[in-house]
């Protein structure tokens, strides 16, 4: 997280820690974790934890270790590209089915999924929250969870960011309607935060309640604007998959 602050897991109880690769995910149900496809590509048994603010091993043991039953990557995800040179992150979404149900409590609780109505269509300026143990301005990763608040912005903003990766050509990047662009003033997600939820407040309830509007996917340069997989576009696939494998 760039431009973020230390956070307690109680503030992001849906936050899932992927030990390898170092990444994030969002707990959406007792049996299901939503993450980015590029996090679990090629990994059939990712090591995951929930319920711990810090991800030192001795603290992780205070949380719950999650055991994978199966990994389901969105069929639209173009598999096989090297992450360093990948320019197409369309359909960067995956589901992990757990063998055992997660026990909910103050530190572990799922995030809601978006409704299918237009109210759940993220609009520019909507403020959302991100969290993770990813790269910061100072470190490649962190032990203590960090969070940040950042607005949704136009996809053009993300397109206009100057390319940092010399291996990829700027015009080669693929932007689709399955992506949300968010960020401002150096507040951004970064490597190691992938798969975590971009949480927006549910517009339909008075009590603060968050739903996963996006998943940390990719960005041209940390600290500028980040691209998030737009979860609303995948609700059909998510619900159908969950039903199919339940």
């Amino acid at each position, binding site marked *: 997280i760039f431009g973020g*602050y230390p*956070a*307690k897991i*109680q*503030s*992001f*109880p*849906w936050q899932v820690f992927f030990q390898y690769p170092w990444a994030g995910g969002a707990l*959406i*149900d*007792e049996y299901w974790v939503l993450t980015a496809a590029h996090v679990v590509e090629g990994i059939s048994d990712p090591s995951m934890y929930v319920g711990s603010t810090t991800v030192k091993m001795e603290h992780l043991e205070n949380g719950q270790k999650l055991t994978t039953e199966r990994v389901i990557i969105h069929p639209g995800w173009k598999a096989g590209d090297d992450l360093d040179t990948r320019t197409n992150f369309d359909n960067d979404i995956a589901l992990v089915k757990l063998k055992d*149900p997660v*026990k*909910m*409590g*103050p*530190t572990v*609780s*799922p*995030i*809601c*999924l978006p409704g299918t109505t237009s109210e759940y269509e993220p609009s520019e300026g909507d403020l959302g*929250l991100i*969290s993770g143990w990813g790269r910061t301005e100072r470190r490649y990763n962190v032990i203590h969870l960090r*969070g*940040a*608040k950042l607005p949704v912005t136009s996809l053009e903003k993300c397109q206009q960011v100057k390319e940092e990766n010399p291996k990829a050509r700027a015009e080669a990047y693929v932007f689709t309607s399955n992506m949300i662009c968010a960020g401002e003033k150096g507040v951004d997600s970064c490597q190691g935060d992938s798969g975590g939820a971009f*949480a927006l407040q*549910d517009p339909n309830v008075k*009590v*603060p*309640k*968050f*739903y996963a509007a996006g998943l940390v996917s990719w960005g041209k340069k940390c600290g500028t604007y980040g691209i998030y997989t737009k979860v609303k576009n995948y609700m059909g696939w998510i619900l159908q998959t969950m039903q199919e494998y339940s």
Partner: protein
Amino acid sequence: ISAEPTMHGEILSPNYPQAYPNEIEKTWDIEVPEGFGIHLYFTHLDIELSENCEYDSVQIISGGVEEGRLCGQKVSKNPDSPIVEDFQIPYNKVQVIFKSDFSNEERFTGFAAYYAAIDVNECTDFMDVPCSHFCNNFIGGYFCSCPPEYFLHEDMRNCGVNCSGDVFTALIGEISSPNYPNPYPENSRCEYQILLEEGFQVVVTLRREDFDVGPADSEGSCQDSLTFAAKNQQFGPYCGNGFPGPQTIETHSNTLDIVFQTDLTGQEKGWKLRYHGDPIPCPKEFSANSVWEPEKAKYVFKDVVKISCVDGFEVVEGNVGSTFFYSTCQSNGQWSNSRLECQPVDCGIPEPIQNGRADDPENTLFGSVIRYSCEEPHYYMEHEEHGGLYRCAANGSWVNDELGIELPKCVPVCGVPTEPFKVQQR
């Protein structure tokens, strides 16, 4: 004078054929073999005549009875026979006594008599009939015989019939005395038995007009009698013309012994009875929470009822519960399976649910209500509108109005952090 039994002999008065002396008494004890009678006859008789032969006489006594007393002079009336007087004695002993007094002035020569053993017709010679049916005389004795179907009793005099041994096992039947309505046999003892299956009592019906057995004697004792015996109870003995007992006899027993006893005399038309097996009743027990099928005012032996428990009740046998059971009215008047009863269905401890719990129920019987709840605030009940209330139903399941037997689900509350994330403003 007595001698060994002989088949014949001669008796002569003293000094015969000379005049007998005065003041003399002489006795002859004549005996022929048993089974014979004696033919005693006089061929000469010349004894002083007096009124009632008070002076001189020859006296013939048999069995303590004077058969005759003779005196005077007698001549044969039959020119072909020398016998002037004779006696047929139906016994094998006779005593002849000759007496003379002191005052004879004339010369009397006395008597000459002979005796011979003769056959006695025991069948006809006595007042008492020796055989109950047929009497057969032979020289020196007699024997009795019986009509067909009769047998001679051990006394060798009386005939009876073989009328015992019949065992009646049919549930309904008719029994009558031998030969009914013709006279029943004398000197017989007929023993019958009615033996019904356990669970039936013998009920005897005897119409007044179907009973005609010899009257009681002056002391009220029956000469011929009909008696019933069942399980420590006796009915009768009955006799007379017209049945004196109750028209219907309930024996309270599945067996009944009938004895018809007749004596030597007085044969009447007898009797005829009807009987039937009356099934023993079982009590119609009131049993709460159950329905008897079929419904009857009275239940009897072998009746089978289906006892169905009303909704919410069941009968538990071992570990198996059922909504009904069958019960049979038994031969002892008790119901089978009487230990079974309909008791409230027990739904048992409600099944646990993930991330929630059921209230500790006060009881788990039919009609009880429990409430499931979820571990708040992290879980809530899916489709909460059903309220989580479950009622113990008749089928033994906890049932919710909306979900039926399906258990409620506690699903995680989503999107609500315990502590809101606060951006630290610099």
